[in-house]
């Protein structure tokens, strides 16, 4: 299984919302490996960019780069300049506007004894809800996810090392792709 982690080449960090999901990966990976399931995250950023951010976040799960190939394009989570120029991209099985050059998703593959590989499933957008461990806790809390007033529901989410006391949220803010690294 792979998680298509939104982290484009040149970004100074991975997407905060994907990081919010990824905070739950390490716990799952060790158990998955004992149920005949391997897991990796995959991003279009280069391997050095991935390794640097992974170290900052303290994660251990396998994370590979599709920088040199079309993998994330093929599974409709990376969008070309041409796609973006048209204003809409193919995401979650339809043409839609999208605020980033990378999108979140998960794809599942099966390898049989003969080594043949099959694509069995891909999910995007709220199809990933189940993988957001913190949301499953919040759904039990009196205020729930508490996002009704937000233009972008995850506007309150920060990287786990970026929360500060008295954190403020812009209720009108839409998704903003992480900035490019300087230099």
């Amino acid at each position, binding site marked *: 299984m792979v998680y298509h982690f939104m982290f484009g080449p040149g970004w100074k960090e991975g997407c905060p919302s994907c990081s919010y999901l990824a905070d739950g990966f390490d716990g799952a990976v060790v158990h998955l490996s004992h149920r005949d399931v*391997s897991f990796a995250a995959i991003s279009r950023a280069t391997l050095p960019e991935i390794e640097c951010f992974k170290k900052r976040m303290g994660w251990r799960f396998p994370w590979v780069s599709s920088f040199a190939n079309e993998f994330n394009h093929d599974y409709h989570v990376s969008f070309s300049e041409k796609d973006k120029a048209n204003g809409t991209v193919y995401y979650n099985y339809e043409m839609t506007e999208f605020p980033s050059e990378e999108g979140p998703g998960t794809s599942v593959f099966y390898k049989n004894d003969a080594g043949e590989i099959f694509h069995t499933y891909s999910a995007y957008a709220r199809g990933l809800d189940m993988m957001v461990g913190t949301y499953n806790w919040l759904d039990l809390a009196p205020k729930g996810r508490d996002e009704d007033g937000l233009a972008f529901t995850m506007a309150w989410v920060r990287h786990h090392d970026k929360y500060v006391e008295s954190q403020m949220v812009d209720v009108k803010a839409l998704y903003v792709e992480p900035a490019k690294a300087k230099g």
Partner: protein
Amino acid sequence: MATTNLTTNQTTSKKGDQAKVVGPAEWLAARKEFLRKEKEFTRLRDELSRQRRALPWERVEKNCSRDPGASRRWQICLADAAS
């Protein structure tokens, strides 16, 4: 950015909404009634997962290529990641 758009991260929408406060017997009755709905949802989710596993597969042709170029890199990704 207008400051009126800003809210604290602790409460972004509902302002202290509170449900009806009741005694233990009424609390338990409401909880058990809701448990029936939760069990129905769990059953439906199991059924949805069963149907997901029954979906058809597609062969990953690109991976079958012996081309040592870009598609081989793709193959390495899959060999590492595929379950």
